[in-house]
């Protein structure tokens, strides 16, 4: 196979920079009477990292699920490299969109290496007969898959733990493994659903480096995140989703400066809008509140 040569600098699913990879037009998702996502347009170009932010319940993950075929949008269409996405999640992955999950969904009782090998599923063809007869082609494909998987594990820094069970990995490494598993399907677009949730600043920093490295492989990245610093450092463009609708899209400075975004996160200003120092005060209070909640993290789990 050609994997060894191509992966040195670019992923096999990579496209030339500037080309539109993902094109979602007018995506609407209704569950009964509830409209979770309304008429959202989003494009992702190759070589780009696009962020998707929004308050809790804004419909980010629903939108993600529309992009990955877990949900079929009620209206609108999603095109990947010009083709409308098939309505099954495994076909979407085969087409070239890979994802990670908000709550880690590894194959807990498989080894780290096996997890990545499962990610290779769409890029290998050996069926049951080939497995039973074990011809030379089978061994060649299996060896190539293993080599590629080990490369990916080295890429995320888990090569020493390839024989460990996935569930025995610490949290941050489970996140990394999920990314490696998604990369194994040789995607052109990687969707990351809150990749730094629950991470400490160092781990977040490392994840940032990892996402940049993935971008440098030529894979477009769409990332949902709550960590604003992470998003603003990382993304070329940020889209803000509020109550199922896209509020604004632009570079991080535009989004950060937009009043509607601040309003969506912090609430609408009063009749006589507060001045800048009041806003600063509110933000300070907010920051303070965050640190105090951080100081007592056991609160939620207290019974």
């Amino acid at each position, binding site marked *: 196979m050609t994997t060894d040569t191509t992966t040195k600098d670019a992923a096999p699913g990579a496209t030339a920079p500037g080309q539109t990879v993902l094109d979602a037009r007018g995506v609407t998702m209704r569950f009964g009477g509830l409209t979770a996502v309304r008429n959202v347009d989003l494009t992702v170009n190759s070589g780009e990292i696009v962020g998707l932010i929004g308050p809790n319940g804004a419909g980010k993950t629903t939108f993600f699920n529309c992009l990955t075929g877990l949900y079929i949008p009620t209206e609108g269409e999603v095109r990947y490299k010009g083709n409308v996405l098939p309505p099954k999640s495994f076909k979407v992955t085969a087409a070239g969109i890979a994802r990670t999950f908000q709550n880690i*969904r590894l194959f*807990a009782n498989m080894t780290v290496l096996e997890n990545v090998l499962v990610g290779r599923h769409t890029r290998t063809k050996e069926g049951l007969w080939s497995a039973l007869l074990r011809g030379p082609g089978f061994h060649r494909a299996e060896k190539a898959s293993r080599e590629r998987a080990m490369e990916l594990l080295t890429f995320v820094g888990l090569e020493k733990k390839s024989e460990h069970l996935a569930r025995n990995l610490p949290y941050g490494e489970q996140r990394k493994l999920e990314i490696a598993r998604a990369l194994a399907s040789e995607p052109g677009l990687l969707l990351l659903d809150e990749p730094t949730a629950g991470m400490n600043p160092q781990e977040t920093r490392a994840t940032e480096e990892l996402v940049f490295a993935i971008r440098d492989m030529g894979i477009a990245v769409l990332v949902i995140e709550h960590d604003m610093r992470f998003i603003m450092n990382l993304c070329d463009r940020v889209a803000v989703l509020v109550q199922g609708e896209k509020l604004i899209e632009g570079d991080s400075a535009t989004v950060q400066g937009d009043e509607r975004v601040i309003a969506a996160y912090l609430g609408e200003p009063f009749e006589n809008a507060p001045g800048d120092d009041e806003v600063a005060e509110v933000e300070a209070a907010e920051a303070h509140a965050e640190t105090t909640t951080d100081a007592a993290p056991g609160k939620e789990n207290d019974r």
Partner: protein
Amino acid sequence: MTTQTTTAETPSTPTAAQTSLIGLPAPLGRALATAGGALTIISTFLAWTWTAAFPGDLTVYGYPGGLQVLVLIGGALTTLFGLASYGIKGLSLLTPGSADSAVKTAALGTFATAWYTVIAISTDLGGVVNLEPGGYVVAATTLAALIGALALPFERPQPELADPDDTGWEKFRHQSRQNWNTVKAAFAAKPPAPAAKLPAYAEILVIVAAMALGLTVFTYGIGTEYDQLFIGFLITAGFGFAALAKAGLVARVSAITARHRNSTMAGAFIAAAAFPFTQSDDQYATIGVYILIFATVALGLNIVVGLAGLLDLGYVAFLGVGAYTAALVSGSPSSPLHVQWPFWASALLGAAVAMVFGVLIGAPTLRLRGDYLAIVTLGFGEIFRITVLNMDGTSGPDVTNGSNGISSVPNLNILGFDLGQEHQILGTTVGRFANYFLLMLLITLVVVVVFRRSSDSRIGRAWIAIREDETAALAMGINGFRVKLIAFALGACLAGLAGSVQAHVTYTVTPEQYQFAHVVPPNSAFLLAAVVLGGMGTIAGPLVGAALLYLIPAKLQFLGDYQLFAFGVALVILMRFRPEGLIPNRRRQLEFHEETEAPAVLSKAGA
């Protein structure tokens, strides 16, 4: 006992102290255990009872028989491990794990077997007067060995403090949990250090020895002639295996077998093929062939349940499809098709028809998950049986002859070798069932190879991924439905293959052989139990599970109507204390896998 005195003397060192369950000094205990084991060996050469009314003839001096042999083996193990625990050079090789735990387990097993025998003699013959001096001697020596073994030191777990607000019942529970932990710690063994690699021939010799031992134990178990001997066998074998495990030998051998998987498989099949040649008549080959059919089908089910995680409660129907198909083309007079196909054709047809049924049943049901799938497959299993019952010419088309089934299925004749006749092979008479045993062994080999190869491949990983997390597996590009259907159809196909042999072994194929639950295996409930009992996702697990599940009801006839009840209780207990099954999956062992050698990094990463 004297426990109170010692605990009073050493109350100040509760943390990880080297204490023992019985307050004898450790050197004395060790000597007592070893000597007790040795004396037990001698006592088995005495007469235990005066009359031959107790089966096995325990009346002879100088010649151990029946249960005495089992006690002799137990005593020998105790003595060996006892001597090894002194650190004697050659013998300490026997106990790479914990010699003390091994001594304890062996002594306990010997004690249990001996006392079971003595009690059985007393109750069967009516009173302890029926014991000869040898009986008392063996009771005393095994008890002494046990006491000595229990005096060996172990690391007492640190007691958890009780909540002073606890009610009496909670205190009692706390206390009993504490005691249980202590007992567990007393028998706990640390895993042996990884062994130095032996030369390949030596490792193969070890495998051969292990296989020979396995064959001997199995042959002995299958050949036990009376209930008491079989119970004694179960006790001795169970404790003996546990003692070997505590000594670390099981871990050593399994490490070696993992390195030589092909040799192990070949060895196991040669050992299994040797079984009919150890038998003088066909009596136990019958049990052997039924066990093999049961085990093969259980292994096929393990693909569906153990690998792909699809709970199939109607699996026996595919065995039935294979059996009926083979019976229909076998040339049986009660078959409406008056054709007689050669075996290879009927076996292929049986497998193919079963596979078609697997696809037909799987296609609509595999869209369901979990419990729903279980219920629907249970339904389809019963639909098969009832349909076959009704295709008798009155309620439906005349195909299967209804409840009478297809009878007088002729014996197979493969390349001029009539499996119904006795043959002289290597100086031994190989009877009808032994012939079928060897044929069935080939089918088992096929299923084992299919299981092994498919599980260690792209498709096998996809099955396991589906079992672990279906949504994530779909997101990884696995076509869940297709992959599950392949597992279902492959499982059905293998069961059909086994069924095509079963039709000839049993002469008659009737609907009630293929029920959901029935006292005689194979049926869907027992098949699933064999998989769960043996260990899901392993090859050896269902084979061992099926052998036990077949042998125990067949040998313990006195249980009678309580068979299923006893079986249920045993299953509940097993699931409580060993939920991973008798032979756990490698993955479960990997859970404790700490040190891994650095992998050969093949090339630099793409970043």
